[in-house]
C-alpha cells in the first residue's frame, strides 16, 4: 500500500513537471509575472532604503501571489480533459495523488523563490550573509512545503467547481498568513535586515515546520474526500 502510494505520487509529480517543462507556463508566464511584481514594488516604494528593509516581505508576497497562479494551473491541467476524474474513477489512491501534486508544486515554487531571491539581491541590493544561508534555505523549504500543502488542498477543492476561481485566494490567503509571517521574519534574520541576527530566525523555522507537517498530514487525508463527488 505504502509502496503503491509512493509510486503513484512519484508518477503524478513527474507527469506534472513534464507538462510544465513542455508547456513553458512557469518559465514563460509565471516567472516574468513575479519579476514584474518585484519591479512594481520598487516603483511603489521608491526608496532603496525602504526596499532593503522590506525586501523579504515583498519576496514572500510575490511567492504567495504566484502560488495562486501555479495552483490554478496545476489543477487546470487535471480538469481540462477530465484527467483527475479519470484517476478518481479508476479508483486511484487520492492521498497518492495529493503527494504527487504536492511534490510538483514544491519544485515549481522553489524555482519561483530562487528567481525572486536573485531578483531581490540584484534589484534591491540586499546582501546575504554567509551565516544566514542555512537558515534561509531551511526556512524557505519549510515554508514552501506548507504553502504547497494548503495550495493542493484548496486547489483540489476549487478545481471541481466551475467559475469559482476567485474562491481560491479567499480560502488560501488567511491560512497562509502564518507562513508569510514566519518566512518573512526568518528571511530578515538570514539577511540581517533591521539589525537582526541569524539566531532570531530559528523560532520561525519551528513555526514553519509545524505548519508544514500539520497541513501535509491533514491534506493527505482530506484531499480524497474533497475532490470526490
Amino acid at each position, binding site marked *: 500500500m505504502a509502496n503503491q502510494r509512493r*509510486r503513484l505520487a512519484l508518477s503524478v509529480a513527474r507527469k506534472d513537471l513534464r507538462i510544465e517543462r*513542455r*508547456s513553458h507556463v512557469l518559465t514563460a508566464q509565471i516567472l516574468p509575472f513575479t519579476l514584474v511584481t518585484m519591479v512594481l514594488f520598487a516603483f511603489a516604494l521608491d526608496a532603496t532604503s525602504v526596499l532593503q528593509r522590506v525586501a523579504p516581505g515583498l519576496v514572500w508576497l510575490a511567492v504567495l501571489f504566484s502560488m495562486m497562479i501555479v495552483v490554478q494551473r496545476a489543477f487546470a491541467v487535471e480538469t481540462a480533459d477530465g484527467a483527475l476524474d479519470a484517476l*478518481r474513477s479508476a479508483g486511484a489512491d487520492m492521498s497518492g495523488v495529493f503527494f504527487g501534486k504536492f511534490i510538483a508544486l514544491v519544485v515549481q515554487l522553489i524555482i519561483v523563490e530562487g528567481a525572486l531571491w536573485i531578483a531581490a539581491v540584484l534589484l534591491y541590493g540586499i546582501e546575504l550573509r554567509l551565516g544566514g544561508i542555512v537558515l534561509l534555505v531551511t526556512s524557505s523549504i519549510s515554508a514552501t512545503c506548507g504553502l504547497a500543502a494548503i495550495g493542493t488542498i484548496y486547489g483540489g477543492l476549487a478545481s471541481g467547481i466551475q467559475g469559482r476561481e476567485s474562491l481560491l485566494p479567499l480560502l488560501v490567503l488567511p491560512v497562509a498568513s502564518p507562513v508569510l509571517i514566519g518566512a518573512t521574519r526568518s528571511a530578515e534574520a538570514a539577511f540581517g535586515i533591521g539589525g537582526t541576527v541569524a539566531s532570531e530566525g530559528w523560532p520561525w523555522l519551528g513555526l514553519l515546520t509545524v505548519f508544514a507537517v500539520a497541513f501535509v498530514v491533514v491534506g493527505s487525508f482530506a484531499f480524497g474526500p474533497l475532490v470526490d463527488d
Partner: protein
Amino acid sequence: MRGYLWSSNANVVRVEDGGESPSVCRVNDVPTAHRNAVVMTDVVAMTGGFPALAGIDIQVAEGEIVLLAGPNGAGKTTVLRVCAGIQPIARGSVSVLGFDLRTDLAHIRSNVGFVGHRNGLYEDLTPAENLDFWAKVIGASPDEVDAAIDVMALNARVRDTPVSRLSAGQRRRVALAVLVIRRARLWLLDEPHAGLDASGRDELDGILRRAAASGATVVLASHELERATALATRRITISGGVIDGGDRNG
C-alpha cells in the same frame, strides 16, 4: 484470475468477483445462469437538482454489448456515470460486476472504465506519455502498454504527437487504450462514435467486438442508432429517466 483483454499475463492481482449478483431479473431477457455485469434496481440519480434517472431498472449480462438509446436528456450519460461509480444515487440499488455501489465503490471503480465527452488525457503530453503514466499508476508492464498500443492501432507518429494536436478519433483510441491498460472489465462509453470518420467508426466497432469477445462487457450510449445497433447485442431505450415502455427486449 479471469482473462483480461489481450493481457492474460498480467502479473498484478486484481480483485475477484464478489460472486453471483442477486438474481433480480424481472424480465426473462437475462438467463439466470449468466453473471450480471450491471444490475440497477429502481435507481434515482440527481444531476444538479434534476432527477436524471427517475427509478430505472437495467440488467446487463457479462460479455454483452449493450446500446443505450434514447433522446437527448433521457438519462443515458447518467446511467453510465452511475455504473462507473462517479455519480451518487439518491435511491435504489446498483450492483456492478457483483459489487454493491454503496459498499464496494473502490472495487467497482478499479474494474470499470468510463470514457465520456472528455477523454481524461493530459493534452500537453503525447499518447505514449499518457499511457506510460497510466501504466505506472496501475502497475502495468511495458508489454501491456505495447499491447494496448497495438490494439488501438496507434502508429509511431500518433504516439509521439501531443494529445492537443490529435484528432477526435485518435484521442478516443488513446482513451480506450487506457481502458485496456487498466484491464477494465466493464467499458462504459458515452457517444463513442461522435466525431469519428467512417474508417474510425469501423475501427472502433472492431475494437469493441474484440473487447467483448475477450470477456469485457460494453455499454455504450449512442445517437448513431444504425451503426450501434449493428454492433450491439442488445438495445435498451431510455426516455425521461426510465426504461421506455415496451422496449425492454430491444
